[in-house]
């Protein structure tokens, strides 16, 4: 079987025609699938009238209006009133003045975006921490009813969020956790920790036990061996798991829309409610959506190698 993988003429190697056909079809699909994303970005750079023109405009003058509307609240004023104002200083002010609007303050978007960050980071840190130690426990020790516990952990992730939200809502109301970031962090941690345990167990299973055993023979305690031998070896896995948890917490909508309303509300339930002066302000929605998606795009690319593993709870390693 020598030099098998590099065979150029093997029968199982697809012919160049089939490769060509395949590549054309795949590229066409990939481009089509990108159209909505492309359109989100394009819309974010349009002015509101351009965004709702018919037929949809592909050629237009880009403007930052969408981003201005996203980050500020504005009111309509008479031209006479506008004339009394000092000249506009920022680009956004200029843009809004042209439409007889005045910026009255920052919008809620920044706050929601910040909430998203805090909740995503907080729950990720917590679930990765809990997941790592639990995964180590499951991977290395004899735990009674291990398979049942592992299944139980996984099944919690399968629960329909709406079904879980009812009692959580009641519980949080009693505990005063409604609409708090800490409440959301705990909730997302509970959802994420199952994925973290399953994924990290896979990663830790792959680290040979002999390393720790050698370390313990050299005088380390079990805990030291875990910290100094296992953790460094598992860094890649931990990072990959963290990104998965992060993406989930970042994208989550159902719990967020049901359990938060103000202070702790993250961006996903907020973005669909960006409404301009009458009707949806699509450029602002596009701007918010674009900003919201950028971290995910970056993470997807970083995570490419572990993606399969993540979505199958570690079952498919590749």
């Amino acid at each position, binding site marked *: 079987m020598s030099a*098998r993988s590099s065979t150029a003429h*093997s*029968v199982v190697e697809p012919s160049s025609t089939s*490769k060509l056909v*395949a590549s054309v079809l*795949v590229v066409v699909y990939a481009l089509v*699938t990108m159209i*909505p994303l492309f*359109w989100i970005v394009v819309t974010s750079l349009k002015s509101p009238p351009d965004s709702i023109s*018919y*037929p*949809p405009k592909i050629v237009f003058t880009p403007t930052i209006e969408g981003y201005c509307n996203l980050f500020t609240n504005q009111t309509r004023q008479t031209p006479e009133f506008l004339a009394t104002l000092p000249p506009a200083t920022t680009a956004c002010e200029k843009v809004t003045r042209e439409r007889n609007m005045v910026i009255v303050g920052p919008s809620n978007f920044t706050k929601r975006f910040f909430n998203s960050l805090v909740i995503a980071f907080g729950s990720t840190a917590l679930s990765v921490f809990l997941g790592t*130690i*639990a995964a180590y*426990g*499951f991977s*290395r*020790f*004899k*735990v009674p009813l*291990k398979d049942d*516990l592992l*299944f*139980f952990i996984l*099944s919690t992730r*399968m*629960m*329909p969020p*709406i*079904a*879980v*939200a*009812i*009692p959580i809502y*009641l519980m949080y109301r009693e505990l005063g956790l409604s609409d708090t970031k800490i409440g959301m962090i705990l909730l997302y*941690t*509970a959802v994420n920790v199952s994925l973290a345990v399953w994924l990290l167990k896979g990663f830790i299973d792959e680290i040979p*036990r002999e390393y720790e*055993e050698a370390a*313990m023979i050299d005088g380390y*305690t*079990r*805990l*030291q061996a*875990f910290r100094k031998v296992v953790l460094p070896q598992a860094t890649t896995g931990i990072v990959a798991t963290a990104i998965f948890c992060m*993406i989930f917490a970042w994208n*989550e*909508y*159902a719990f967020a829309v049901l359990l938060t309303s103000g202070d702790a509300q993250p*961006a*996903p*339930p907020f*973005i669909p409610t960006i409404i301009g002066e009458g009707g949806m302000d699509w450029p602002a*929605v596009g701007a918010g*959506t674009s900003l919201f998606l950028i971290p995910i795009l970056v*993470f*997807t690319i970083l995570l*490419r190698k572990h993606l399969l593993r993540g*979505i199958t709870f570690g079952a498919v390693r*590749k």
Partner: protein
Amino acid sequence: MTGSHIPDALANRLATATPPKLAARVRGLSDKAIAWLFITPTMILLLAINIFPLIWTIRLSFTNFRANRTNAVVKGIGLDNYTSILTDPDIWAAMQSTAHFVFWTITLQTLIGFTLAYLLDRKFRGHGFWTTIILIPMMLSPAVVGNFWRFLYQPQIGLFNYIISFFTGVDPSSFEMIGSVTLAPWSIIIVDTWMWTPYVMLICLAGLRSIPDYIYEAAEVDRASTWRQFWSITIPMALPFIMLAVLFRGIENFKMFDMVNLLTSGGPGSTTEVASITLKREAFEKWRTGFSSAFAIILFVTVFGLANIYVKALNQVKSR
């Protein structure tokens, strides 16, 4: 787990050979203590945030409790909530909408996803790059992107109708994806398919890659035609993976909420009112907490059953 005996035995041996105090230092915490120490926090969290609420839901499901009337008297009403849910034609209709949605998304995603995986398995130049591009939609927030699809679906100003009209010549304002009774279910199916086909594709691709080349070579010398190789080798060998994807998508779409809520919120009429939307209306708009708890339990048991099958499939794939 047999391997853990070795260090255990070793530590024991070291421990017995040394004075007690020193032994404690050598051993540190016992393995058993560490195991519990490591696993318990996760378990406590899950018990507090998943199991305790679940038990609470079960209890509530036998009452007429309403979360928005804290002063009202709560009565136990036995199985009334369950019987009224399971005989309600409207909720049955919601289940059928869910079935329609689940069936078509899974069918489309499996067909397209498998085809894509099959094409990507040709390993043409740049296939890694294009795989990443194709995977992007599935990582995005269904809520945030689903919301934007509402814009794409606007009959006149939306890109979707315009593209369709560009290729078919149909007047773009002559049909409404979200508004029309016949098309609205498809508007959700299309978005879900756009979003989750990559998921199915990725798992199918793993399935295809799990088939060693020599199996195909064997089939080749056994004089199997390309067609027969596909049906007798490729499909059955990739099947556990396809099943995995189908089951997972089935579970996810059975409880689909965010995308539907943002695209149609159940409308027009109640044509796209899937189970989660009904549940949300009952629980958080009508505030019939007891009733919706019973409904939640029904959905939960269904999903739990499917999750059992899923984990079985997962272990099957894992053992490959």
